[in-house]
């Protein structure tokens, strides 16, 4: 088992290991095996295409949580110039599970806010696995209100298992922090574009996700509760997570069909982590186009559209 590959990717991992092995042998020997490597590489592409052509909702959820998946700061690095990270909610602390700051998107000043997971164990713990506490949401709110004052569009990246369910989070008003963001974001006088880049975990995701346009990466997920949580409540067994994932319709394709997601951004073959610069470049292109469309509207039109859209949810 290669830990950098998911269960259903193991055949791909094996093939790639074989190619790597051949390469090493090739370097040492006189025999020309580049044809063989070429053949295997083509086979690998075909195999990856085949594996990824028909992922179940639960497999997509695995890709969304892939340990190599790019996080907010990876996108910032690849698509935002001149970025200054800003810290703290001015009341209690700086929550590392949400990052934010000012930068430029193709020259235009923007406020960027996103959930942030960690890569190594220590970093994962410091980032609390991307599960914000109230101070994270309050930092986000502070930055969003600042964006409104300085007429900067807001770009958010959603990638969280959910808001942190802890004693301290409850003591400091997790519910209120989320609720307040939802209310304020509905009327902020600046364009807001949100992109689900990984896991969209419930209220903890929505608290930075009330927007004018909702984008979603091909293998992102967005749901009201995690598949495991849903399964343990409705099926009385977390083992039924794959059934829950399917029933809830958490994938980009399904949510686009239902009219809940505006644009699906295709991922490189094998998922965003297989080619981060390519992923970032195509998302950047989408963000620029979407922002152009939103900035063509008057402020009144923008806000009216945002409100009408919120009011239309759930009414067939």
């Amino acid at each position, binding site marked *: 088992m290669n830990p950098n590959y998911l269960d259903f990717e193991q055949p791909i991992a094996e093939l790639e290991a074989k190619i790597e092995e051949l390469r090493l042998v090739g370097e040492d020997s006189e025999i020309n095996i580049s044809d063989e490597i070429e053949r295997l590489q083509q086979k690998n592409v075909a195999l990856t295409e085949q594996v990824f052509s028909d992922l179940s909702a639960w497999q997509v959820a695995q890709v969304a949580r892939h340990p190599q998946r790019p996080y907010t700061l990876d996108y910032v690095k690849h698509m935002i110039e001149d970025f200054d990270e800003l810290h703290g909610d001015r009341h209690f602390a700086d929550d590392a599970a949400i990052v934010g700051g000012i930068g430029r998107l193709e020259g235009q000043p923007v406020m960027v806010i996103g959930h942030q997971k960690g890569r190594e164990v220590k970093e994962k713990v410091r980032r609390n696995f991307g599960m914000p506490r109230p101070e994270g949401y309050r930092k986000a709110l502070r930055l969003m209100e600042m964006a409104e004052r300085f007429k900067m569009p807001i770009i958010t990246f959603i990638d969280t298992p959910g808001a*942190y369910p802890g004693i301290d989070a409850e003591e400091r008003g997790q*519910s*209120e922090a989320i*609720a307040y963001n939802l209310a304020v974001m509905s009327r902020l006088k600046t364009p807001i574009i949100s992109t689900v880049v990984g896991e969209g975990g419930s209220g903890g995701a929505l608290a930075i996700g009330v927007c004018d346009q909702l984008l979603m990466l091909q293998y992102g997920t967005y749901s009201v509760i995690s598949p495991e949580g849903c399964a343990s409540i*409705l099926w009385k067994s977390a083992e039924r997570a794959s059934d829950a994932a399917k029933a809830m319709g958490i994938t980009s394709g399904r949510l686009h069909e239902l009219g809940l997601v505006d644009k699906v951004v295709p991922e490189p073959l094998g998922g965003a982590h297989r080619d981060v610069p390519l992923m970032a470049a195509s998302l950047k292109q989408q963000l620029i186009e979407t922002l152009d469309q939103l900035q063509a509207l008057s402020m009144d039109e923008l806000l009216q559209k945002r409100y009408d859209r*919120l009011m239309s949810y759930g009414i067939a």
Partner: protein
Amino acid sequence: MSNWLDKIVPSLIRSETKKKQDIPEGLWKKCPKCEAVLYRPELDKNLNVCPKCDHHMRLRARKRLELFLDPDNRIEIGADVEPVDRLKFRDSKKYKDRLSAAQKGTGEKDALVAMRGEVEGVPLVAVAFEFSFLGGSMGAVVGERFVRAVNVCLEQRLPLICFAASGGARMQEALFSLMQMAKTSAALEKMKAEGIPYISVLTDPVFGGVSASLAMLGDLNVAEPNALIGFAGPRVIEQTVREKLPEGFQRSEFLLDHGAVDMILPREQMRERLAAILRKLQSLPAA
């Protein structure tokens, strides 16, 4: 009860039979907190509050509004909005079947009842969650009825009072239910901009998506005594932090101590106190 019986007898019937074993007749009810056996007509007169230990038992939504509003000039809002199973959701049961069972069991079409009315002569709109309807969960109908209630408030400049009792968002409506959080919160923000009061009354229990949206956004947040209120449920928190939760955690008194609610009001004072508060907030003469 043995396991095989658990499986074949639906849970509702099971708890009914259990009750009958514990309590002599339908005229009597046992207080879930102090276990005192109470005479039902007496309990009704006491607003479903245990006269022995002051435990505030749950109230059905319609009963809540009936006790809260003046008897005259009531008009129901949004009764025509009915649930639709857009996702054809199915877990161990079909959502459609869960809906009809809940409708039969409660006599309600969904988990929120909204009414325009008066309290001690102060005109207002009041909404109440029906916890017996799929745990008072918020789906598209709850969200839409809530927004219609807000719209009546905006059109007629009437204050809004919400009695929340909910486990959170309705999983069977998946992302549609999540979006109700944003929808109801956005509507409340309009009330705020117009300077129309909104009082959120938190009753036992309020969690998840309802807690993290409309229920925490009151100009005043008021709780009934000893209600369980939070974002994540106590069991989830216990599993996450792997420690014992402090005494009184997520109870109304805990929320008051931590600054999440303005006051705790016993049920018998609810009408009088809220009417007096609304008079002040709207510059109306004292009663």
